[in-house]
């Protein structure tokens, strides 16, 4: 494939994605709104992801405490482990790792489900029966992912802090000191950053998953391709947007 053709394809993909993402958000304010589908997706995406988020958050907090306490002990600063775990989880690792877990689980699920519907003409059938697939399929998924990822991130942050506390207690750090440091170190910009990120990450996960699903071509092989691409692209975009948000937050609030 020539470079010109390659670039044209990518520009077209960005255009199509932008139109899908914009329409998905605008449809929130247009009738009909599919409340039942919103609740169903919130259950599948949110409640269904709770086990992996709990495990991820807990052990991430634990390994953070493990590594940081070991290093901090060299400087006689083991006592600030709580601050380090808390800030790292709430500002960065909680949102990003939760986003990546949900991306792996749900962006792939959306791409494969919508992709299967696309290649079996179910989406065309939906249009033929007078239903807008973007309103019925995409908007509920986007909105439910955005909402549920905030709660999942909060769960991850909480479990991460607990996991760090558990490991810290086994390393001779006083638990009350750990939790005191964890709480006292937090400032408004840290919490704001930690809650703004899941809003954007949820949007990325759902729109990318739905875009690759709806644009699937080529039968079952195409569905497999779309599923992989959805996870890869949404993961990369999460990492990239995390960098941007962190830059903006530091620029605005100095931390």
């Amino acid at each position, binding site marked *: 494939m020539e470079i010109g053709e390659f670039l044209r394809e990518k520009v077209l993909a960005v255009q199509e994605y932008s139109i899908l993402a914009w329409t998905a958000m605008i449809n929130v304010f247009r009738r*009909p709104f599919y409340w039942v589908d919103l609740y169903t997706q919130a259950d599948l995406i949110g409640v269904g992801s709770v086990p992996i988020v709990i495990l991820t958050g807990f052990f991430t907090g634990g390994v953070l405490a493990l590594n940081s306490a070991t290093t901090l002990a060299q400087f006689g600063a083991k006592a600030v482990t709580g601050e380090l775990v808390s800030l790292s989880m709430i500002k960065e690792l909680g949102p990003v790792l939760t986003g990546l877990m949900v991306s792996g689980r749900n962006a792939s699920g959306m791409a494969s489900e919508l992709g299967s519907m696309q290649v*079996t*003409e*179910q989406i*065309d*059938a*939906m*249009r*033929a*029966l*007078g*239903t*807008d697939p973007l309103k019925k399929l995409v908007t509920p998924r986007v909105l439910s992912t955005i909402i549920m990822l905030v709660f999942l991130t909060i769960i991850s942050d909480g479990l991460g802090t607990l996991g760090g506390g558990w490991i810290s207690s086994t390393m001779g750090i006083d638990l009350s000191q750990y939790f005191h440091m964890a709480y006292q170190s937090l400032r408004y910009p840290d919490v704001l950053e930690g809650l703004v990120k899941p809003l954007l990450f949820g949007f990325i996960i759902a729109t990318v998953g739905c875009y690759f699903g709806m644009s699937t071509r080529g039968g079952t092989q195409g569905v497999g391709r779309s599923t992989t691409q959805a996870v890869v692209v949404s993961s990369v975009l999460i990492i990239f947007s995390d960098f941007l948000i962190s830059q903006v937050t530091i620029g605005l609030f100095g931390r």
Partner: protein
Amino acid sequence: MSTTETVPTPGGPIGDPNAPVVSFEHVSIGFDGHSVLLNISFQARSGEMVIILGPAGGGKSILLKLANGLLPPDAGRVLLFGRDINKLTQAEMFDFRSHIGMVFQESALFDSLSVRDNVAYRLMEEHDNPEDVNRRVIESLKFVELEHAIDKFPDELSGGMRRRVAIARAIITQPSLLLYDSPTGGLDPITSTTIIELVMKQRDVYESTALLVTHRLQDAFTLATHRFNMKTNQMERIENDGVDPNTTLMILKEGHIAFTGSLVDLLRSKDPYIQEYLA
């Protein structure tokens, strides 16, 4: 077959009642630099069935999707009931589609919904009264003789049954226009005959306009030479070896219309391509 049933009033035409139901005017479409349909022009009047034949990959399914506004043409106009569908907004097009029923090549049933929910789909989207929805679903399934499968899911059905459910889903609102995409594709001869009989019943009992795509010549011949008898509830040969005056055959060749006319015209054609196609 079940006993004779009353004939409900079909969905009335919208737009201009005197215009052809479907009209293609110099329509062309292509993908990835390759032309699929070139300068296609034809019409279907109210109550007419146009059977579209041609080799595989000839653009027959694309033509149906153009008729339903699922694809926009690269050139030309597609008019439904006298209105250019490419000038309609998406919301207007969705309203328009309540007068069009489409049966897809692989049925395209929603596999996470039961037969009941599949057939009732359009009515549920319109938030009709649940009792009325149930009654109409049962009526529609009785038409295709699948009322016993109402609570099954698509993966529990055979290919023929799925096709019949797809027909029930398409006809539940008694649309003015029906689009059939290879309704007998991949089915055995006996099941294919059952499907063709249902298509014929819809044509003759409800007098809806239809575009039917098929690669099976025998389906076209059957539809053109038989009529559905409401009293016996079976199809029967038209008397004196006659042909149905409202059934037109159209053959596509390399994106163009190679033939359009009645079955009699087709059989009398001296065109070498047509003779080779019929051989």
